[in-house]
């Protein structure tokens, strides 16, 4: 009788472990990219300083910023919406070619249509890279970006 009880207990533990592992694996497999709205940025920078830092030493800036959530503050150079409804907001010095290009998270498109050139904005996004181009200037790319509400 006692043996049976112990066996049952062991069986229960094994079952819980199996179900737990399966659940974790399932969650890991279907894990969605993080919504940045409620995430704290790792760094806060101005758009102009951000571009400058990559321009000075892109390897160093890569190591510091890549794959991290960055809050970038700056002036809107351009707001674009394509035919699929994807928004891109370009921050930086309006008289220069180089910019911070923010590809906006399409789950948070509300209110983006009101943004215009010259607005001051704070944007959070994952820094994914830097592209230097002869004619077009050098750009830092942010993905899954959202407007940062500071209140």
């Amino acid at each position, binding site marked *: 009788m006692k043996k049976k009880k112990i066996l049952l207990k062991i069986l229960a533990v094994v079952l819980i472990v199996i179900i737990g592992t399966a659940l974790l694996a399932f969650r890991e497999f279907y894990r*969605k*990219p993080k919504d940045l709205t409620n995430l704290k940025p790792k760094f806060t920078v101005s758009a102009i300083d951000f571009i400058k830092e990559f321009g000075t030493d892109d390897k160093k800036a890569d190591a510091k910023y*890549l794959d991290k959530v960055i809050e970038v503050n700056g002036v809107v150079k351009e707001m674009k919406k394509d035919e699929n409804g994807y928004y891109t907001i370009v921050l930086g010095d309006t008289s220069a070619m180089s910019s911070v290009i923010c590809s906006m998270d399409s789950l948070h498109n509300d209110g983006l249509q009101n943004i215009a050139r010259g607005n001051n904005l704070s944007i959070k996004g994952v820094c994914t890279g830097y592209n230097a181009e002869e*004619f077009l200037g050098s750009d830092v790319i942010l993905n899954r970006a959202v407007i940062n509400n500071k209140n």
Partner: protein
Amino acid sequence: MKNILVASFLFLSMSALHAQDKYFTKEGKINFNATSPSSPEKVEGINKSVICVEDIKTGNIQFAAIMKAFEFERSLMQEHFNENYVESDKYPKAEFKGMIANNSDVNYTKDGSYPVTVKGKLSIHGETKDVETNGTLTVKNGKIAAVATFDVALADYKVSIPSLVADKVAKVAKISVDCLLEPLKN
């Protein structure tokens, strides 16, 4: 006198044209689809910050895509794509440098859709290969929409797919390019 006037007018209009030679975008889209026919889920990523420049006089065209900027529906897929397949830390960018082989067939001053052949070198994952594909340039309201779809064999670029997911990830990925180019003002 008349000749000088005509010549200077020609010169002026040519230099005005010159400034409009280059068209570009920094918000081009590239869709990467490697869903194998037997896979129950989509293996698909989209890059929404593709940089593209075209010189309409020479027909030279270039694309650059930051690998980490490909967004996948699921994080695990995106991590595998970056860490195991294209090794984004080592090879952060994919690039295409080439030209429109039949550039003279395109009338950039007249709205319309023009079929084009694009030839050039595509670099992904540190490997460079010659590619040739058909596409369409659509001239409308002073902008050029550049659209093309072509296949890329992953093995050509030394991207190996582990046997564990071989039934989900296709050996040949479909790449769709969609860029709306605007005149570059100097």
